[in-house]
């Protein structure tokens, strides 16, 4: 547990030192939202379409940022040191915690920006929307941490990451987009229950698989 926290703090510290992921992700989100706004201009596609656009932005932002945790270790040549000094599971959980915090911050930023710049995007059930963002972020961060560890060992890291992640993340994406649409339409909570059940079971399944498989990926 202690070493998990130590790895989490180490990642936070090295991130704050370089601000590589943070800066580029913030710029990425701003760029994408402005492109969406320029593309839409005077049209008003309605909240349902905007719900989809929001998740597209979140997907590509996380694809460009979440692989950093492992790729940077590989690039700086610190993988071996980390392998020697910490157990594989603590590395995974530390990195996962870092990605969850990073993605939660990022998604919060994205949604706030989205609400500011796209006034047409209105919600009837903000509470459901909030829950969807939280659980969606958790599922996204947990799954992509594991895939980042795989990608870090491959040759073409940048392009391979979304390719590998998309099919694995899709059940989760279809569910969150569906739940976001329900939140926009103001559906009762009982109607979204199925989506949350699916999201939570997906989260548990990928978390357990990651915990079991990480040893294999991490050790050289």
């Amino acid at each position, binding site marked *: 547990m202690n070493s998990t926290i130590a790895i989490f703090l180490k990642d936070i510290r090295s991130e704050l030192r370089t601000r590589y992921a943070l800066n580029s992700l913030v710029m990425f989100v701003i760029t994408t939202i402005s492109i969406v706004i320029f593309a839409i201009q005077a049209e008003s596609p309605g909240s349902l379409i905007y719900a989809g656009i929001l998740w597209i932005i979140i997907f590509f932002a996380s694809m460009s940022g979440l692989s950093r945790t492992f790729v940077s270790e590989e690039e700086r040549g610190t993988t071996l040191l980390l392998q020697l000094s910490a157990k594989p599971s603590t590395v995974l959980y530390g990195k996962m915690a870092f990605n969850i915090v990073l993605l939660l911050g990022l998604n919060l930023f994205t949604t706030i920006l989205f609400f500011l710049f796209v006034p047409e995007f209105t919600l009837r059930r903000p509470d459901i929307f909030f829950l969807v963002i939280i659980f969606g972020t958790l599922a996204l961060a947990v*799954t992509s941490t*594991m*895939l980042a560890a*795989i990608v870090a*060992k*491959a*040759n*073409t890291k940048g392009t*391979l990451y979304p*390719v*590998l992640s*998309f*099919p*694995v993340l*899709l*059940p989760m994406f*279809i569910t969150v987009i569906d739940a976001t649409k329900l939140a926009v339409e103001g559906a009762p909570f009982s109607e979204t229950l*199925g989506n949350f059940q*699916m999201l939570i079971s*997906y989260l548990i*399944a*990928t978390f357990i*698989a*990651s915990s079991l*498989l990480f040893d*294999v*990926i991490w050790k*050289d």
Partner: protein
Amino acid sequence: MSKIFKYLLGVILTFVIIVGFSFPMVANPQHWYEFPIIPGLEEKARNIFFHVPMAWVSVIAFLTSLVFSVQYLRTRDYQNDIKSVSAAGLGFVFCVLATVTGAIWAKFNWGAFWNWDPRQTSIFILLLIYGAYFALRSAIDNEEKRAQLSAAYSIIAGITVPFFIFVMPRMMSGLHPGSAGDAQGKGPLFESKGIAPNMRVLFYLSGLCFAALFFWMWNLRVRVETLLWKKQELA
């Protein structure tokens, strides 16, 4: 033994294909060689003997690949990696065949080659998973590392497959039978008691034969790949 099996499979599969295409469809079947007309499907119902087995085999192939991925991680025997890749490669072929036969059926029954029905979405994802698996394999040079990582990836991808095949199609409305909102209710895609006995026999026979064909092709591929690997080891 294996020779008899091969000839038998060849004969039965030929029989299945000829019968599937040629038995007449009549309103009131009197003989064993007549299929009943299914309202709304008519002659297009013949595709059931080819499309559904292809989809089954692509899932069987994926599971085979998954099983040998797990085996590889347990034993670290390179032979298991060969088995896993070979199954995945063949599974990809069957997956493409299922998609194409399905798309043709969809064109004439539902009006368009592609409708993003939940099951079409799931087979699309299966194709993407296979594609990503091979993309990952081609991006790693080290043999051992490639085997390890692709095994891990196929397990992770494998745990999401049940969501696509069993959960989502029943949650969402769609065009395939068994989707939510279907007149006959949610349930399995295919219920055998709904169709005529002779069609049912041919249908299961077809599924069995294509599965056997898959295992035969898989066996050949594994043997070839093993020989190539041994040759490389010796060189």
